[in-house]
């Protein structure tokens, strides 16, 4: 038996956080995302303008005093649109990822825990959504209903949950056999408590990582829908900017490059964070460092 001394209890979560902040790429991702999110949140407050207003002559080149990053074919200021568009893109991305992860975890957990018929039925539903061309389905949903930010987020969330569900199911299949789950049953825990209070916390690490990547996917999805003109036309978003200027791509590179760059940086930041989390939460990868 070890010496009773001042032992500092290290929770698995704290240990993971320690690993996470050690990774330079993860820290870079966090900084980048913080910057982008603060621009999107604070920019419109400090810099009041209407992104749909005409600011200068159409297709003004970047570097002029009235439009630093130039204007698009309707004379709308690119910088203003970038600042305002970030809100819609990030909001849809985050909401869609939340919806997708919530549906995925719920369905995957129940399928994995109960198994047999429930598993079969839920996984066939998941497969149905997986074989469906996701973009096409989201387009149909977005066209059937009025394309607002909410319907777009719902459409993306509804098509992208099966991968999270499969992951949650696999974790549940593995974890439900472990002794501490049986031990929990033996002390009289209800089924609800075992699923959500005992198994889920142990299944979280890979799910957190997958949720992070889901945000990146959802942002790209939103951009694709807006590019195709199926986003909310009354809200400026990066996808909408690219979409509305796509015919001028060769003559006015700045109208598509800057929003494209923003999408790229956001997805990059989210992916770096996801990678960092994966390294920190996965004990097998942790040993490599």
């Amino acid at each position, binding site marked *: 038996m070890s010496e009773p*001394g001042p*032992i500092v*209890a290290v929770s698995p979560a704290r240990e993971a956080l320690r690993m996470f902040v050690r990774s330079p790429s993860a820290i870079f991702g966090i900084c980048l995302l913080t910057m982008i999110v603060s621009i999107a949140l604070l920019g419109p407050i400090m810099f009041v303008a209407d992104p749909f207003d005409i600011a200068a002559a159409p297709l003004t080149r970047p570097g002029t005093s009235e439009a630093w990053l130039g204007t698009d074919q309707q004379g709308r200021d690119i910088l203003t649109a970038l600042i305002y568009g970030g809100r819609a893109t990030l909001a849809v991305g985050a909401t869609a990822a939340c919806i997708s992860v919530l549906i995925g975890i719920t369905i995957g957990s129940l399928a994995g825990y109960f198994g047999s018929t429930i598993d079969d039925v839920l996984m066939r539903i998941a497969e149905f959504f997986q074989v469906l061309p996701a973009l096409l389905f989201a387009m149909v949903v977005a066209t059937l209903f009025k394309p607002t930010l909410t319907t777009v987020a719902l459409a993306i969330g509804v098509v992208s949950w099966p991968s999270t569900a499969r992951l949650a199911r696999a974790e549940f299949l593995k974890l439900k056999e472990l002794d*501490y789950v*049986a031990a*929990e049953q033996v*002390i009289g825990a209800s089924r609800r408590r075992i699923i959500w209070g005992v198994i889920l916390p*142990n299944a979280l690490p890979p799910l957190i990582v997958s949720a992070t990547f889901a945000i990146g996917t959802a942002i790209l999805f939103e951009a694709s829908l807006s590019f195709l003109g199926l986003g909310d036309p009354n809200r400026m978003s990066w996808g909408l900017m690219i979409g509305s200027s796509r015919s001028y791509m060769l003559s006015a590179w700045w109208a598509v490059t800057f929003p494209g760059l923003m999408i790229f940086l956001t997805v990059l930041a989210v992916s770096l964070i996801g990678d960092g989390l994966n390294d920190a939460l996965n004990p097998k990868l942790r040993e490599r460092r």
Partner: protein
Amino acid sequence: MADVLLAVEGLAVEFTGRAGTARVLNGVDLTVRAGETLGIVGESGCGKSMTALSILRLVPSPPGRIAAGRVVFKGTDLLAAPEDHVRDIRGNRIAMIFQEPMTSLNPVFTVGNQIGEGLRRHLGLSADAARARSIDLLTAVGIPAPEQRIDEYPHQLSGGMRQRVMIAMAIACEPALLIADEPTTALDVTVQAQIFDLLREVQARRGMGLILITHDMGAIAEMADRVAVMYGGRVVEEGAVADVLDRPQHPYTRGLIACVPAIDLTADPPGDLLEIPGVVPSIWELQTGCPFAERCAEVMPMCRQEMPPAYTVADGHAVRCWQRTGAAQ
């Protein structure tokens, strides 16, 4: 004689698989009185753990199914009781300790959190009261510096410590019956003795009934008041420990006792380790007659035809073997 705490009567459990339906337990009868230790002994696959799980109605279903029998705990048949009622009994009136302390604790919660859970659930204690009780319990199971240990996670404890934590969890609500399923198999011999001392002490202090499941005849000799020898899903011999160990009636019991290695340095050459030839029959094999017949040195033609009935050798000492029944007739 103390009151009967738990009576298992004619318990049968079936598993259905691709190959058909197999009887894992085939008419198990057991009784445990308050303050008494019943040892259940047998090789792996004899149905010891399945008996324990059936008592708590935790047989994985499907594929398992309790096909027949009663488990009467303090006058209530647990197999017929509603699920809510059984859940209130689990951990509160009947508790269980598992074989593997390394995997029986949830890695993402602190020790205190896990001990306190049963207290909050069954006794309705507040978080503070549960914490205070948990510290008392950790002290009771002999964990040093419990005020610090309570905030630790399972991976920071050794195997012996974890088993102590499991025992603390199990006795938290002062259960009337504790089922210990090979509680020391995964531990060092020295730690094993400590855990047995602890179990005995807890039992004496609280007057608990204890079911000790093991494959170790030495543990039975040390701990149990009565012993049930299981083979092929049946209790083949049952009686007071002194009777069964001194005058084993069933060839299987005698085999198990002979297999305990003795420390004898004077023997030259060292004595051979004994074994019972053959293996436990697969549950999928259709059985008629005595399940031990294939491995028995004293097998008679009759053994392969019909399962022998229970035959009382002496007061409280019963055996299921045609050799004994036949000798009496």
